[in-house]
């Protein structure tokens, strides 16, 4: 128990700090790339930059969480398999749904919350393969991580804007 406390007192190992460090490094890299390119202010370039930053934020958050959570694993999996074609992605989601029905109870449409559960599955990364119970747990953790992310990114934006 005490070793845990001593680890916890080390600031470099919290989720928030890991995310902050990873995200800042990614931001610096992206900015360095942007500076070298000449056309940095067309809408197209801005949108590309936005996408990069958004992906960087999500991936750095998932890396900070590691493999402990299904949603972080799903994000990292998506990044690593980004080159695959869409057909394979759809096949994987179909298999995920089958897996969910196998291990979880199949809830029919009349159940309260069936439609919302589907929407939630699309929102939470990796939610396709989860039954309701896991989905709610992952959603709770995901919400907490999103809050962290928003706070840190807001703070960074604040610092950069001054």
């Amino acid at each position, binding site marked *: 128990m005490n070793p*845990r*406390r001593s*680890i*916890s*007192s080390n*600031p470099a190992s*919290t989720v*928030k*700090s890991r995310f902050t460090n990873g995200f*800042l490094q*990614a931001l610096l*890299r992206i*900015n*360095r790339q942007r500076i070298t390119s000449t056309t940095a202010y067309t*809408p*197209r370039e*801005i*949108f*590309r*930059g936005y*996408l*990069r*930053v958004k*992906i*960087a*934020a*999500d991936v750095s958050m998932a*890396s900070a969480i590691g493999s402990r959570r299904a949603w972080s694993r799903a*994000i990292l999996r*998506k*990044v*690593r398999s*980004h*080159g695959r074609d869409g057909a394979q*992605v759809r096949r994987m989601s179909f298999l995920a749904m089958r897996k969910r029905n196998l291990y979880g*109870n199949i809830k029919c449409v009349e159940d309260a*919350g069936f439609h*919302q*559960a589907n*929407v*939630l599955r699309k929102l*939470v*990364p990796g939610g396709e393969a989860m039954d309701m*119970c896991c989905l*709610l747990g992952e*959603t*709770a953790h*995901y*919400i*907490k991580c*999103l809050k*962290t*992310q*928003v*706070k840190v*990114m807001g*703070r960074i*934006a604040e*610092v*950069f804007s001054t």
Partner: protein
Amino acid sequence: MDGHENEDVGFQHGGEDNLHCPSLGMSTNPLPEKISGMIMSSVSMYKPSNGADPFFSSGWDPLASLSQNENFGGSSTVSHSEFANPPYPIALENQGTSSTCQLVRYPSNSSFVELVQKLPCFGSGSFSEMANSFGLPDCGQIANSGCPQNYASLKESGTGITSTNGVLSRDDPQISCEGAIGSSPDAKKRKRASDSKNSPVTHQNAEGELQKDLSRESSDVLKEPDEKKPKIEHSKGSNLRGKQTGKQAKDTSSGDASRENYIHVRARRGQATNSHSLAERVRREKISERMRLLQELVPGCNKITGKAVMLDEIINYVQSLQQQVEFLSMKLATVNPELNIDIEQILSKDIINSRGGVGAILGFAPGMSSSHGYPRGIFQGTFPSIPSTTPKYPLLPQTVLDNELQNLFQAGFNSCPAVDNLGSNGNLKPEFQ
């Protein structure tokens, strides 16, 4: 994973808005001995000592220390084992006469009995052998011993789950006893009588069995009793913990509806008592437990009753958080800081330690207390220097890294389709691999 468990306490010090944590922590502090089974269960859902989630860590520290000091709290040390093993010293002995109290264990017990009977080693004749092989006092002693004695012996194991397993292993002989007597639904009734005597032990037993029963992996059950024979304590505990996810571990404790301070699933009057419906009820209770936790996370949901409405709120909240992330990433993409390696280090320290809210930037209260306060409209108005693309952003998909990004990009800009791949592949892999 253990290394990460409580390291995230620091995260909590960042001034998280987990307002409920301290209050819950305080309220449960006076009840450590008695178990606030339910409260601790809901609390320990995200208890850092579980190694599951770090966010409530500072708020839960008193509880964590309590649970870690208490032997029964060992269950909370299990990752994702949300519900503490209640201390059954006193109350269980009183309930021998309750007719419905032990129904919780029956489905799992009966199934476990069947499984146990399949094991050749467990026979009524070899019961004493088994008991001796476990190095334990015999069944009668276990049955009559008070809880503290069990816990004293279990304490050596070091973890609660291990203690659960240890007890479970000890219970095997008892179950085999009863199973030998009547391998039928009648065994339930006999167990009722013996359960009252073996209450402290079988309670944990029930938890362990519910773990297995509800995990629907009977292979685990078959394996574990065998494995427990050679080595009672530590390793099996960790194995069991490793095998069973949080969902199953929660099943055990949620499977016990509350009788006094304990969590028990009780087949209520007029309800079916077969194993399927009880498992269903356990599952429903687990889901409702998580919904309650989500209710605490999402602001403004304290008064909402009803699963569908609650889910709607959760969906809205997740969508709004994701949109905030997108907005902020857009803002960061357009801002151009003076870059410096030192700046990064200074920034990271500053950001980690800063407790400032995000409201200054986003122009709204970070608390977002009202359920309709998600300021989606604000985002559209404040996109810097890209007014022409503003209408596109509300349409952005909520998922990241989808191939839909490519489509959106094309829809938005008539750009070359390879740009998205370039943007991602070119940057992500070196950055994050």
